[in-house]
């Protein structure tokens, strides 16, 4: 190295040392975005996650419950609140999903979901053992053009149109779940690994989007270890575990969207380089690399669905209830068209208008599509928290039905555990408006924070970012006010 180059290098080093450290990005002004707590430092948890039984046993238990639910939907009472199909799926499972599993355990449900498991067992030709052979079935790769959330969005809209029937009639609930199970099992024999869960499952779609907000993640402990480790067992599999069933590259996992929390990567990794971490909410929403219009639309659809379901199921509008409830075919058709229009048309249009304003105010320095896509991700916190508010309104008044139906799952007058006569007991319903308002407020504040961070990412100049975020604040304020009116107004 010449003397001149050495001087330049030394000067650069000195400047780097002298330069003030960049401030750590923080959520809500005090939680560092990069804060992590590795749970798998606890040896017992690491052992637990590496065991194949950790996934198998909860799945088997859920499969048993699912079979009971399937039977109850077919031969049980048609009275929803006395049938385990309605009570377990739409009161217990849904509330558990939205209030606990998604925010605190990401897609843990996908890791123990009974719906595709028969297909997966057949595909692997094993239950817990890891045997090295070609999977049964055709193992075709999913077409490249369909590798997105668009199909999932379409399937979800189709299901949402029937929500009034599915959530009140046991047979309809079972028809939906049974169809998912049959379709899933069939597709496991045609397509590779968990293609169905990734690209078609209507539940997996919104779990994937909201898992980005979750306070937990699976990530490699050390990137250099993964880079230096050429056998890539977490992708290809080893005798200890299957390659990522979700077709992800665990070595390069940046977001929770398609991580199904099956822990196969823990089992495969001979370097013991995978970790389970607690982290601040919403960290993945700031990851720029994988954003897309398909996920943006998922955010609109879920946010809109929370509003429409709240209006339909908890609002005072009887006509709307009748329409959703298929009182007349014409009414239902109107409801279905209206729902799809609001979820996939009106909300994106409103967001598009605010994104256009942001783009104009910030000086049109980046493509409008990027502004539109990026800002859609700040709708995730408010969307999830709106669902949490909605779920409180499902669980608190109706949760006591769970105690009753475990003794009498079919509504046939059984009393298996002596709780069949447990009276309907609403719990803490006087707190409901406060809980819902608090959820919304938290979602609003968090969304504002994420919106500001996304604005800074999209428009590097602070002044442009500040101007760009104003329409987003107005949009988020409007959304929060609308939900407040629906919940407590």
């Amino acid at each position, binding site marked *: 190295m010449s003397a001149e180059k050495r001087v330049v290098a030394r000067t650069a080093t000195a400047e780097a040392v002298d330069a003030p450290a960049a401030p750590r990005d923080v959520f809500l002004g005090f939680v560092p975005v990069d804060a992590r707590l590795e749970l798998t430092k606890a040896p017992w948890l690491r052992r637990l996650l590496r065991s194949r039984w950790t996934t198998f046993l909860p799945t088997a238990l859920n499969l048993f419950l699912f*079979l009971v639910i399937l039977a109850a939907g077919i031969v049980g009472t048609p009275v929803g609140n006395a049938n385990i199909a309605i009570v377990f799926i739409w009161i217990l499972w849904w509330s558990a999903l939205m209030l606990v599993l998604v925010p605190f355990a990401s897609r843990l449900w996908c890791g123990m979901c009974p719906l595709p498991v028969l297909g997966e067992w057949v595909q692997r030709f094993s239950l*817990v*053992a890891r*045997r090295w052979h070609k999977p049964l079935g055709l193992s075709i790769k999913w077409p490249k053009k369909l590798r997105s959330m668009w199909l999932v969005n379409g399937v979800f809209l189709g299901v949402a149109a029937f929500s009034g029937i599915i959530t009140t009639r046991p047979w309809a609930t079972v028809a939906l779940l049974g169809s998912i199970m049959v379709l899933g099992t069939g597709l496991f024999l045609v397509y590779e690994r968990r293609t169905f869960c990734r690209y078609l499952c209507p539940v997996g779609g919104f779990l994937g989007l909201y898992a980005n907000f979750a306070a937990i993640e699976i990530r490699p402990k050390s990137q250099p270890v993964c880079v230096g480790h050429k056998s890539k067992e977490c992708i290809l599999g080893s005798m200890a575990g299957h390659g990522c069933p979700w077709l992800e590259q665990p070595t390069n996992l940046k977001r929770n969207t398609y991580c199904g929390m099956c822990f196969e990567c823990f089992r495969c990794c001979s370097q013991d380089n995978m970790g389970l971490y607690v982290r601040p909410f919403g960290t993945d929403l700031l990851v720029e690399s994988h954003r897309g219009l398909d996920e943006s639309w998922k955010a609109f659809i879920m946010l809109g669905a929370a509003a429409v379901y709240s209006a339909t199921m908890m609002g005072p509008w009887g006509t709307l209830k009748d329409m959703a409830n298929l009182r007349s075919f014409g009414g239902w058709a109107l409801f279905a068209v209206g729902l799809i229009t609001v979820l996939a048309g009106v909300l994106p249009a409103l967001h598009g208008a605010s994104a256009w304003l942001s783009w104009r105010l910030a000086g049109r320095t980046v493509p409008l599509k990027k502004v539109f896509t990026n800002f859609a991700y700040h709708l995730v916190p408010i969307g999830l928290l709106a669902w949490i508010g909605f779920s409180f309104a499902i669980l608190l008044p109706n949760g006591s039905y769970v105690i009753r139906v475990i003794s009498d799952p079919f509504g046939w007058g059984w009393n298996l555990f002596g709780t069949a006569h447990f009276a309907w007991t609403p719990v803490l319903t006087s707190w409901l408006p406060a809980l819902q308002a608090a959820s919304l407020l938290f979602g609003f504040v968090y969304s504002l924070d994420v919106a500001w961070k996304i604005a800074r990412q999209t428009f590097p100049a602070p002044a442009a970012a500040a101007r760009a975020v104003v329409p987003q604040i107005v949009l988020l304020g409007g959304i929060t006010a609308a939900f407040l009116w629906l919940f407590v107004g």
Partner: protein
Amino acid sequence: MRTFMRAVSIWGRRRLFQLRAVGTGEIVALAVVAVVLVVGPASVFAYGRWMDRHVAVVHARQWQYAPNVLHATAGVPLRIRLESDDVVHGFKVIGLDAQVTQLIPGKSMELTVTAPKPGTYLYMCTTYCGLKHAMMFGKLIVTAP
């Protein structure tokens, strides 16, 4: 045909070999799945059949109970399953601690009645169910053990 049979045979032997090589874990897991898929549902339905044989099913309809006479033994619990065939009814055994306030159509309700001493007890509808609501009653005849 011979080639096909040979291919099936090779495939079958491979699978059999793999099945032998699976170890205890897989066999335990197979047992769990067998319980989940077969024994569990079978025992649920067996319980249902057993329950059906040990319960008196009473249908409520405007404006009668069918049957309108039940027999029991003093001191021995009698399980009654109530089902409404039309509108919301009620059920109460006068003089005993046995009551269902809302018998909803399509939903079964079950209760257990224990009469301490022999005699005839009336049971009646306790939820207004139409013009002849007051005429809707039946008899529980309790005999000495």
